């Protein structure tokens, strides 16, 4: 994933819940890209998906 793939605003979430399958709009053709270092993908792959459940803090000011 590179966030540069999209230069328009993401659509506003209509409601919380599963992402609708039928409003994706026209699909872009699949283009094979040369593998290049992508620090974002590297870090997303390493992301601790449970971090949010474990993260608790004291209230501050």
């Amino acid at each position: 994933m590179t966030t540069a793939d999209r230069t328009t605003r993401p659509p506003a979430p209509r409601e919380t819940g599963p992402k609708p399958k039928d409003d994706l709009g026209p699909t872009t053709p699949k283009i094979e890209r040369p593998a290049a270092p992508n620090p974002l993908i590297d870090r997303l792959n390493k992301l601790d998906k449970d971090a949010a459940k474990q993260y608790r803090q004291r209230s501050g000011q």
Partner: protein
Amino acid sequence: MREVLAGIETEYGISVAGRGPTEQVDDARRFVSAYPSPCFVGWDSRFETPRKDIRGFQVAHLSVDPVDAAFDRAPVTAPVSDLRADRVLANGARFYNDHGHPEYATPEAFSATQVAALDHEGERILWQTAQAFGEPVKLFKNNTDFHGASYGTHESYLVPRGLTFDQLFAALVPMLVARVVLCGAGKVGSEHGTPAAFQLMQRADFFTELASVDTLFKRPLFNTRDEPHANPEHWMRLHVIATDANRIVQATARKVGLMQIAVALAEMGWQPTQQLANPIKAIQSVSRDLTFSFPVELEGGAGSSAPRILAEYFDAAEERLTLTPELAQLVEECRFLLDALDTDWGAFKSRVDWAAKYHLISEYRAENDLDWEDPTLIALDLGYADLDPEESLFDALVEMGEVVAPPEPPLEQNDSRAIARALAVEHFGKYLSGVSWLRLTFEVNNRTQTVELRPDCRYPAHALPLTDVESFIEALRRIQNAP
């Protein structure tokens, strides 16, 4: 226009491996104590008055969060006198344990760009301390744990005592609400009120009051604690609570510059015609509006929007103030961003934290077909705030050019009173017995000498002799006694 002295305090999120909120006060104390570079230990808190309200009264006690208070059971491994682990750093900043959070308070500066650079330096200082800490620790520059606990970033501005609070509120509150569009740090979900998938502001859920002396509970947009850190006859400190911790350095400069403009306009007696019917409701609705139109209700029932309110400030600033080049450029950038919000999303999201985060998370969610409630999205939010350069999603976005890189530090050196504090710590630390925002106390030849640092004066480094402590003190006194 008078250049408005400003500073930012940030309480960082901290998570030590195997520990939790019950031990957090002790962890933060031990963490700050691990700061590895030269500093002065001995913050002078004798003149702090947290219960005194700027509106002319004193409260008996400050409110506490009853949920949070339950964590106060754990023993702390330090004497009370060392609980804060207060340090004054060699750049003039204060670094200490504030209620379980390592807090970095920037040195004061007149320039918004300099305040932002000093705030960014705080991230480096926190990370440097993490390397010296000796235990696995995660640090987050954010303002929420996503479970109902919030911790602050605050801004302080030096304001003439002659301005009444009514004048200040009328001139500043619409700006505080409207600037969220250009300065919010962004957050997945909500912690109070109606559910939200994503918000522009990390802190919006937590405000219930317009102004209050409290900050831990029933949080206000403005804190009214009467601690001017200056001569109280002439000055007061405007303590802004309604702000987020930004990662984009230019966004930090933007929020400070916008408030400096609003304060300067207030000093001229100006206030926007667009006064909000309910500022708390407005900041929360702007934060949650993902249609990006940001409507607000004005007094009298008319409608407006955050961008229209900002435009009124920009017009007034350009018409009425002699803007510094820095602030003139800032107004121009803000006008560009408001336009880019509709016409050039790529440019907007590269300069505004909430947009960069929203874009990243929306893309990830779409590719992985996740609900907005999926906790993975909060993990991404935390990843954006993560200070670890190897793991931070924000740093990855900068590396890829998706988000603007921090600017080069300003060429002009800071010349606020913080420079005097910094030089005292760096060169005359062995003579210091107390340091605060306002005062330096030295012990020289068995004599105590206290010097006041005036917030309205300039302390250029080249004018402060470093040959010996007595010449240094004498130079500070000359500035103190200047008309």
